[in-house]
């Protein structure tokens, strides 16, 4: 595929604002107490090592993909997932609700991503890191092409629209859950989801690459 160009990613204000008031030990986020979204993958009676292993097995792929769509870079996404699981291991005993594990991990990953901007440790330039988007293994060339087209338009969405959409389509979270995760009003989340899908639909229609009529 040809080279893709994105606008430089915006710092996510929601995550930056929340990060400042979070402690470094990643305690259990309060909002996840009400989150009954995910099926429990472990019980509190399991050993710490077992709980950790189950979290890795069940959630590492979704976490990586979510991280990837936050930063749009495969290497940084891998670093983010590593940092996330390192912190998860250190504060695993604070995760008291097995149903909230996925949201808990996503919260940690968002915080790690925000720290990336605070520390400016990664000299990351969106315009030079497009190759990873082409990295895919699909069974059919047509499907691969379709995926690339959608990825290109998804990556071009402003982050404030892309993130709730990814949480909904990849994480399977409801608007209420997304509102809790992003610490936003549920109406704001719905508006962003609506605008994200409208923008995506418009860009796909304009490029004439997908028609479902």
């Amino acid at each position: 595929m040809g080279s893709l160009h994105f606008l430089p990613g915006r710092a996510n204000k929601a995550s930056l604002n929340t990060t400042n008031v979070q402690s470094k030990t990643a305690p259990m986020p309060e909002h996840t107490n009400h989150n009954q979204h995910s099926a429990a993958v472990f019980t509190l009676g399991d050993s710490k090592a077992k709980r950790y292993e189950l979290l890795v097995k069940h959630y590492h792929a979704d976490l990586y993909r979510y991280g990837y769509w936050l930063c749009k870079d495969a290497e940084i996404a891998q670093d983010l997932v590593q940092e996330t699981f390192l912190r998860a291991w250190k504060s695993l005993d604070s995760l008291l609700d097995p149903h909230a594990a996925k949201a808990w991990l996503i919260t940690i990953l968002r915080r790690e991503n925000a720290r990336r901007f605070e520390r400016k440790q990664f000299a990351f330039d969106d315009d030079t890191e497009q190759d990873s988007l082409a990295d895919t293994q699909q069974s059919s060339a047509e499907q691969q092409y379709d995926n690339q087209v959608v990825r290109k338009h998804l990556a071009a969405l402003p982050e404030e629209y892309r993130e709730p959409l990814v949480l909904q389509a990849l994480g399977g979270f409801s608007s209420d859950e997304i509102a809790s995760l992003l610490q936003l009003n549920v109406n704001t989340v719905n508006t962003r989801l609506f605008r994200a899908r409208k923008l995506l639909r418009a860009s796909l229609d304009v490029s004439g690459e997908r028609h479902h009529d």
Partner: protein
Amino acid sequence: MTNTELRRLLLTDPYSQHPALQQALAQDADLRQFAHQLQQQQHALEDALQIPVPPMLAEQLLQIPKLQKRRWHWLTPLALAASVAIVSLLGFFGYQHSYANDIGSHALAHVYHEHDYLLSHARAQPLEEVNLKLADFGANLQEWQDEIIYARYCTFQGVRSLHLAVKTASGYATIFVIPKDTDLKTTPHFTDQHYQGLTLAMLNANVVVVSDNPADLQQLPAKLHRKLVFSA
């Protein structure tokens, strides 16, 4: 609810079960068509979000608790420096005297040396690219199905060889392709406390398989005999 509000509801969630929306969908063909389009787009979006995950990511994450258990002490840097010096000396003499002629020991040393790097740098390697590297050894993998996650040149006592890793059910297995012009003594079977290995004498090269899972040493050699083809 107006038509605009219903469409907005669908754009927020193409699978919304809102009663007013469900009622309107039953009566309005245009709205149904709109919902159908959005659901198709949602499918495309869900597919597109499934980008490939680095093949050894889970294994890498599972190492974290083990690494965390290594506590640091104020003497640690000093102890480390002393250890490095001793190990370097012993390693040097050991390498010179006991390991130098043994293909199995060389293979194990390579596996240990590359393990951490491999966990963090494993990537799906396209078969065409692996075959380009294998071409240097007059070899070719034909109809190979297992995922190759690592392919780098290395040296066995100065002889350029190929270090491959394939994803297996329990982690990964290492395959070395080592030209026969080394002076290393072939070891049909070798083992240590973590790994087992065996050497397959093929047409132009010795092919060494190493894994921590005995099952890999059962299934991979037969596959390699069938699918790793050397040109005369």
